[in-house]
């Protein structure tokens, strides 16, 4: 961590918060506090400068217009690039995931992305809406991903990133892979409060940010029940 306090920045909640994205900030803060880390959550609006010294940056989902505007302002601000160069963690969800790449489509136009991840997004043949599940890259040592997706884009990964997961239900990037990661940057189409269903993923981001090899386990009874219920629901829908 850059200081004694774990600093979490939620980027542009005025633009990129369409689907309960606040949840990821709340979940990270709570899980860090329960391990004894002092936490500060900063909500940085699109008319404010982005601090460059935070430990975790969160970018949420959004409609086409706000997504394009958010990308333009982040490019002009430059703060996120400096933070990444200093080793900060970035977690992007849905529109926030797309804009971490080199380009994305919004309102029928191609927009320049932040070029922090080697991927690009275009429009798919149909909107992907529904449960999303996948087996996460074994190197990350996490249980399967579960989430809900709602996006019209398809994302193509370059050699500079690894897929976050192999899709077992839903569409993700292209029906085969879902999300992407490189270093301490990670993006997913599992939208909104993605960490609510994936507490182990929340802990991965916290380990990246704090440098801790292990974090004491927490009581995740309800999250585990939710994960099991969703797994059953996906299996039932497929049968």
């Amino acid at each position, binding site marked *: 961590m850059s200081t004694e306090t774990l600093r979490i920045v939620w980027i542009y909640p*005025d*633009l990129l*918060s*369409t*689907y*309960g*994205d*606040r*949840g990821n900030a*709340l*979940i990270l803060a*709570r899980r860090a506090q329960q391990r004894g880390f002092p936490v500060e959550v900063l909500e940085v*609006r*699109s*008319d404010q400068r982005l601090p460059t010294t935070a430990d975790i940056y969160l970018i949420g989902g959004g*409609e086409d*217009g*706000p997504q394009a*505007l958010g990308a333009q302002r982040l490019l002009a601000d430059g703060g996120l690039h400096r933070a990444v160069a200093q080793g900060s963690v970035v977690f992007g969800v849905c529109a926030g995931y797309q804009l971490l790449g080199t380009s994305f489509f919004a309102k029928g136009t191609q927009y320049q992305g932040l070029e922090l991840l080697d991927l690009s997004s275009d429009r798919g043949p149909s909107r992907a*809406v*529904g449960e999303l599940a996948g087996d996460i890259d074994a190197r990350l040592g996490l249980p399967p991903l579960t989430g*809900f997706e*709602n996006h019209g884009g398809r994302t193509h990964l370059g050699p500079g990133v690894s897929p976050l997961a192999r899709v077992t239900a839903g569409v993700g990037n292209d029906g085969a892979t879902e999300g992407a990661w490189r270093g301490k940057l990670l993006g997913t189409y599992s*939208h*909104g*409060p993605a960490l*609510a*269903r994936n507490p182990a993923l929340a802990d991965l981001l916290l380990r990246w940010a704090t440098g801790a090899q292990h974090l004491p386990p927490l009581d995740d009874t*309800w*999250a585990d*029940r*939710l994960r099991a*219920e969703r797994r059953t629901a996906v299996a039932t829908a497929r049968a």
Partner: protein
Amino acid sequence: MPISRVRWSGNLARVTDAKMPLRAKVASSVSRTAAALSRAAGRGDGSVIGGWLGLKIDPELLAHLSAGRAIALISGTNGKTTTTRLAAAAVGVLGRVATNSFGANMPTGHTSALAKAGSTPYAVLEVDEHYLAQVIEATDPHVVALLNLSRDQLDRAKEVAMMAQLWRAALARHPDIRVVANADDPMVVWAATPPASHDQRITPPHVTWFSAGQRWHDDSWVCPECGSTIQRSGEQWWCTGCPLRRPEPQWTVDDEGVVDPTGAWYKVKLQLPGKVNVGNAATALAVAAEFGVRPFDAVPRLGDVTSVAGRYAQVVREGRTVRLLLAKNPASWLEAFDMADEAPTLLSINARDPDGLDTSWLFDVDFAPLRGRLVLITGDRAYDLAVRLEINDVPFQYVRTFDEAVRAVPPGRLEVIANYTAFQDIRAELDRVN
């Protein structure tokens, strides 16, 4: 509002079946019969099946049934069922009113409601926001009320800005329709204002603004006109990049009462809970005024409304007084917390098709107002709610059924807040209470 401003011919001749083409007559009759059969079979309110059959036989049936009636359409994300009920009560000062009072708010429901009502001079119809443009074309309304636009069932609903654009285009095609619109919601103000009158200091003559307050601001930080940031201070809001700003409302809510455009204050004593319903009453009075109804005459009728399609209904069950509150999306959850008493509270969440399949919105609601109450949770998606409440530091108890919840609380009041199908499930347990 002088009656001369109303647009229909003023000839409120009876809409008799004899005036309709044969196909429409048959369709209307089949529609009524099917609705009656559905009710008799205990399959539902009958408010959808009848209209569906009628429209199959005559796709123009809704237009035929609308002809000759003076119609108000009421649309928005939240409060439309209650506002429709209140507006129908207010317009009832003038004569019989047809209305879709069971919340069946798509063209099938409108068709069924008008067919069932027979000939009435007036109709007040709740319209699903996605269908507003279509229903405007079919019914040629006298007035359209726009309540609010916020996120709701995002896995299938159109995004908020896109919905505002659809409303705006529909109204721009009919500049002769009176519009009653919420000055507190930037998306609604933009939708209600024709593209030619960007300068909001000029209120278009066909628009009447009301202010009913807005608790939820998270879907209107970006200007729908120019994309700049919208600033807020107190009740005022304005775009930082273009002239869009809050218009001066003619109807406002003040101190348990409603202030009309002349500045007269009317005490509104409702049996429905919460400040939000006083706002709905103000909207209803503004709609009725477009037909020439004076608030003085309408206000007593608003106090007669006790519950609306089960919403706010109270039922005694095993010594507990159960009250039902419907909350479908983040904005309406905030309002439900305001309406609910400090009492044991059951929350029930489903995510079936009518609810939207996505539960992410739970994290857009701050459940902190429930701290200190005995909170029980149930429903298909109770586990999603459990995770949310845990993170929100709201202790809770999980129960599998509504009956288990009733037994788990002490005798006295039990508030039930549920989303759409969860609400209907509990209402069914209470014998379809209205």
